């Protein structure tokens, strides 16, 4: 193993992580819910009266984060997507299917679940990280995409 010191950003990542933690903590304190993005978004695909406005508000909030970051702090997100279109399509399908079947994603299981010491979320997080390590190994080092 070789560390990529040029890309490594311990301070911003720790700080950004703490902001994610504040968002998750505020969310459960104020709204009584887990800040799990896949669960909140998946509720949008089968609209139920009275269950939509809050989901839409939260989603719009995330969606406009880059705008407010640029407007207030003059910060623009670095977004580098090198995967080709077919890969993006396949990745989206698997992420959606898997998050629905596995009851959560990196936010719901990874951040909130581990913060509330849920054994289910620990298993889920270790599983999707393991699958991620494996997938990148196969794609980059065995197939060479």
């Amino acid at each position, binding site marked *: 193993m*070789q*560390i*990529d010191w040029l890309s*490594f*950003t*311990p301070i911003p*990542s*720790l700080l*950004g*992580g*703490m902001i994610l*933690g*504040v*968002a998750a*903590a505020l*969310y*459960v*304190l104020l*709204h*009584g819910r887990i800040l799990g993005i896949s669960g909140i978004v998946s509720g949008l695909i089968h609209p139920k009266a009275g269950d939509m406005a809050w989901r839409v*508000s939260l989603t*719009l909030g*995330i969606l*406009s*984060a*880059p705008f407010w970051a640029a407007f207030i702090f003059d910060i*623009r*997100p670095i*977004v*580098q*997507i090198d*995967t080709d279109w077919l890969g993006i*399509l396949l*990745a*989206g*399908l*698997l*992420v*959606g*299917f898997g*998050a629905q*079947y596995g*009851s959560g994603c*990196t*936010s719901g*299981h990874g*951040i909130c679940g*581990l*913060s*509330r010491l*849920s*054994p*289910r979320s620990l*298993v*889920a997080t270790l*599983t999707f990280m393991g699958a991620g*390590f*494996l*997938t*990148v190994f196969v794609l980059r080092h065995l197939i060479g995409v």
Partner: protein
Amino acid sequence: MKKHFGLISQYAIGTLFGWGLIISGMSNPQKVLGFLDLAGSWDPSLIFVMVGAILVGLAGFYIVSKRSEAFFGGALRIPTRRDINRPLVIGSFIFGIGWGIAGICPGPAIVALGAGYLKAVVFIIAMLVGMKLCEKFFSAHKQKPTQA
């Protein structure tokens, strides 16, 4: 009135969450893939994101455990299941494969969409289709999946 404050709060927390992703670098799929590439040139940043988030989150969920109601009213909707079952493991494994292909998960996908990246549109539509397919195939033994 309280309802409107609730919706504004939802929006503001969404934006704060998006900022967390942007500042931590996790809105960049290449950075996530850099973490997942153990055998290559490895970027450990994601561990720092998780540690930061969980340190704060632990305090938040500890405070919540002493309360019975959310600030904006209503019961706390926190999952209570503790069983490790097949859908949890298989679903998470499938999620991880998708995550490993593009380095994108649901939160960062929405941030990338907001930043105007066309590939995020395709990713999100595919993600919603994937969720729908899961519901369709597995509605028989529902157990409506309680999130997280």
